[in-house]
């Protein structure tokens, strides 16, 4: 579904992604972990077509990234750091607006609102929403058009325990619908509970990978530590 080969991304003199290789098969849920500044957000933005690679091959759903246009974007759903929502509109109005961009029916909008648990607050201004609710609405916006691929950038940031659990429930339901998901995260344990595979991104490259099922939290921490240490060694 997603194929990345030798991806390089430079911002002027700063090289963030160094010949990164990465691939995701259809239906997989990959959690991308790594220290700050490793390039997770950059990679995600490139996959989301919001940023252009400096060089390298990126293929998503059989579209070449550099030639892709609106058709590719119709297959993507993105939840980024920022909510991408208009504070002065209500939740429903937000979805109606985005719905018009994607050609979505009213029923689907209602369905999505119920799915993320915001049906009762749909006519409240987004400005009044808590962070957790905004995140859920953001996910709603991302799945509105039933994309095959979902890209999430640290969606649990700023959420308390309860909100985080609600989000997890939504994510699990969403993932179960057969989508391919890539999620960056800082939260090792949570990532493991949601994902089918964990990849580690360190200093611009994927340095380690492991299937997520059946690992204890001890295993996870070991994996993380060794992988990081390995990545930091001088080549």
């Amino acid at each position: 579904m997603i194929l990345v080969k030798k991806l390089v991304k430079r911002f002027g003199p700063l090289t963030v992604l160094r010949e990164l290789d990465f691939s995701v098969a259809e239906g997989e849920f990959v959690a991308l972990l790594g220290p700050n500044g490793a390039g997770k957000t950059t990679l995600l933005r490139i996959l989301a077509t919001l940023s252009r690679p400096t060089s390298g091959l990126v293929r998503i759903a059989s579209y070449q990234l550099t030639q892709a246009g609106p058709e590719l974007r119709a297959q993507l759903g993105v939840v980024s750091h920022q909510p991408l929502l208009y504070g002065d509109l209500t939740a429903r109005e937000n979805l109606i607006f985005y719905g018009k961009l994607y050609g979505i029916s009213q029923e689907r909008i209602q369905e999505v609102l119920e799915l993320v648990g915001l049906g009762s607050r749909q006519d409240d201004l987004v400005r009044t929403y808590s962070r957790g609710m905004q995140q859920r609405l953001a996910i709603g916006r991302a799945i509105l058009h039933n994309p095959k691929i979902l890209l999430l950038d640290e969606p649990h940031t700023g959420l308390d325990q309860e909100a985080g659990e609600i989000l997890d429930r939504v994510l699990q339901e969403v993932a179960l619908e057969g989508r391919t998901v890539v999620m960056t995260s800082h939260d090792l344990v949570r990532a493991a509970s949601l994902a089918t595979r964990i990849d580690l991104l360190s200093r611009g490259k994927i340095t380690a990978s492991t299937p997520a099922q059946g690992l204890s939290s001890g295993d996870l921490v070991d994996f993380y530590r060794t992988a990081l240490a390995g990545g930091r060694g001088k080549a």
Partner: protein
Amino acid sequence: MKPKPRLLTVLDLLAAVSVLAAAGLVFFYAPVEQMMGAVQKVFYFHVATAWVGMLGFGVAAVSGILYLQREEERYDVAGSAAVEISLVFFLIAIIMGSIWARPIWNTWWTWDPRLTTAAIVELIFAAYLLLRSGVDDPERRARFSAIYAIFGFISVPLTFISIRLLRTIHPVVIGSAEAASQGGFNMDDPMKTAFFFSLAAFSILFADLLWHRVRLGELQRKVIALRFKSYEEED
């Protein structure tokens, strides 16, 4: 760091010699103009620097187009160098225009088309440099500068035509029959020689300065790149 090319040294000498020669021609060869007296000699440098300044603007606009098409950083360096130098050239032109205007029209400044357009071009250059200082990402800065240079360059003819239609007391310099009555003058041959030589001399000077400034820009880039490399190796 590439050593200074022989050709550049030659160009340095050529620029220095030709500007001095132009000055010589202007002061000793061209006759003193009947009606305006010695101050008219300012004209040679005034027009030369203004035309070369506009040439610089053209260089910046073309560099902009080339950068957008090819994304090679040297076009961005060339464009910003051209704007910086043209900024100074235009300033010289405006000041000289002022010096000329004072004894002739009895005022330091007039809102006539050419002078006003020159002031506007200066403002566009200043805006260009301000834009550059407000964008941190080098590629974005290059792109935005390129776009602004193109827009700016296209707007100048329209602006000039508009102002020209609005009002005029600037002398129509070359060969017009009513030139004298408007404060203009006809040029005879020694004057023409001095004029075209000045034009050539300042063009050479511009090219010389541009080359130097571009080398400086390249050097800056290398320094920044090296600095980043050393940060990364520290880890």
